[in-house]
């Protein structure tokens, strides 16, 4: 099994190269004038800037050469300069990645908690009202467009009822803590400001739920199916014959046996979360990669678009690898076999 992980690790650089290549090709072959992708319209008339850009990106050269230059720059961590923010794309992305990760992790936590609980309940009480409600919850979760759900919940909980805060990571009047990790919940604690920490958590609830619902639905269906299978196995009878109570039977014996596939689906749900984050961040004015990507796409900010796409692909690749490793670690039979 270690050999399998090793093989995956060796394949990683090639996949990353593939991601870079595909992102580069898809976004540059189609464009008429690649210069507009690097230099903003206003600066197109500035011969110095144009010449510098041409030299740097080799625009006077053929596509393969340009590709080689892009990859060469990328190896030094240079993804070009965004012409919306006028900062290096790599810097922008690094600055915004933690906000997205915080949202995605929170959504994953929400999704996993709700999903596993509902899945267990639906399996234990199968074909009862609880089961049917859980199924509806799951189906709605994968059917509601997140951007609309975000709007609707903001309107209801924030505007109408005022029980949850509006968009943003913190109250607009609050002074954000100095950025250390980029995770607002952690940075507020590092700054020693507990009230600000609560505010950050408060602001996470709605977007995390909006993003986590669909994942909760998927997880609940999978957990339900696996629980039904496990609950019919003989060792469940053994546990009952030992005198274990129903709660213990369900959680310690049955649920633990479904953890491997559950972990896997949670890991793979990352793709969905990254996709959903793009839209959720837009609705909740969340300064992460998703809203950055949307701004870049709307503003035809190509260095930023390519950069975000590559980073998104790499993040996705790494989480899938981690999921596979977790699968191996969590499964005693695979681990020792």
């Amino acid at each position, binding site marked *: 099994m270690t050999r399998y992980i090793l093989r995956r690790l060796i394949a990683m650089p090639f996949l990353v190269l593939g991601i870079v*290549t595909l992102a580069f090709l898809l976004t540059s072959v*189609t464009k008429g004038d690649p210069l507009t992708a690097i230099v903003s319209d206003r600066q197109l008339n500035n011969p110095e800037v144009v010449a510098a850009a041409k030299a740097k990106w080799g625009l006077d050269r053929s596509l393969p050469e340009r590709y080689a230059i892009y990859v060469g720059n990328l190896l030094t961590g240079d993804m070009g300069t965004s012409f919306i923010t006028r900062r290096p794309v790599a810097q922008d992305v690094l600055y915004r990645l933690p906000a997205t990760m915080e949202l995605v992790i929170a959504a994953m936590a929400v999704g996993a908690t709700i999903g596993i609980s509902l899945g267990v309940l639906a399996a234990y009480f199968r074909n009862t009202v609880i089961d049917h409600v859980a199924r509806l919850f799951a189906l709605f979760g994968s059917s509601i467009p997140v951007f609309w759900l975000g709007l609707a919940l903001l309107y209801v909980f924030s505007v109408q009822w005022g029980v949850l805060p509006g968009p943003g990571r913190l109250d607009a009047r609050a002074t954000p803590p100095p950025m250390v990790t980029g995770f607002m919940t952690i940075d507020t604690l590092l700054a020693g400001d507990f009230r600000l920490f609560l505010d950050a958590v408060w602001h996470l609830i709605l977007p995390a739920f909006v993003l986590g619902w669909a994942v909760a639905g998927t997880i609940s269906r999978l957990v339900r199916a696996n629980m039904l299978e496990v609950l019919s196995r003989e060792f469940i009878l053994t546990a009952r014959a030992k005198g274990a109570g129903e709660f213990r039977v369900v959680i310690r014996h049955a649920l633990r046996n479904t953890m491997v596939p559950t972990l896997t689906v949670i890991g793979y749900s990352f793709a969905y979360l990254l*996709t959903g984050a*793009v*839209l959720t961040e837009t609705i909740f004015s969340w300064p992460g990669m998703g809203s950055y990507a949307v701004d870049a*796409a709307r503003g035809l900010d190509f260095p930023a678009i390519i950069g975000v*796409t590559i980073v998104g*692909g790499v993040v996705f690749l790494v989480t899938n690898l981690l999921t596979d490793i977790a699968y191996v670690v969590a499964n005693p039979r695979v681990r020792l076999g």
Partner: protein
Amino acid sequence: MSVLSAPRFVRPRWLSLPLMVGIALVLFWLVATVAAPWMTVHDPLDMVGRRLQAPSWDHLLGTDALGRDVLSRTLHGARHSIPIAVTVVAVAVAIGAFLGALAGFIGGIVDTVIMRLVDVTLSFPPMLLAMAVAASLGPGLENATIAMVIVWWPVYARLMRAQVLEVREREHVEAAVASGATQTRVLTKHVLPLCWTPVLISATMDLGQVILLAASLSFIGLGATPPTPEWGSMISDGASQFYSWWVALGPGLAILTIVLGFNFIGDGLHDYFDPRSK
């Protein structure tokens, strides 16, 4: 069914409640796709009333920032969203199935090249890749459609390849090869006909997800352009008129109900084919 006998509907065994609800929802929107002009009172593009009017008897779902009737626009939206989703899936299936079949049947270097391309494409979060491609092609529904095909075809390539690999091991194919049939003939006559069913079922189930993706692209301004009554861009209008909640209500419910319809059908079919999960 006799016209004279009592019109009592007896539900066949395969038609479970989820399946029935799903079919009803999808049928409703298919009807709207065809008949939207006859189902609505107002023109979707005309400014027919005051701006940002709350729902009333004249305008059941209110009016938007330009005074257009939200209900009319919502129903007409089906004429954009559904054909686009069908196009995307159809083209993606055509490309994906062709390349997948090729990869599975020829194998070797062809297989490697195609499948690595599939792997790399599927390594992107779909929304991000679709956004990048749509943005570089420029806004517009056609370009969004192309972008979605680029994101979606690898799914069917994988599925088709797996199918071909499985089917070609069957005895009747080996018999055909042994009897001297040409490669092409074996592929088209003996292998492909047996591979379609799962691909087509999965394609149908994906329609809902494609509708969601298309609406998402339009929502961030990379799909439909004004004044097209497309659901995603209508919700985007609603987002900028945040306090007039009804502007986004119609298109939101439209997306929700049609995607829910496809998901209900998928769930019903799943129960039917895998009764253990009941």
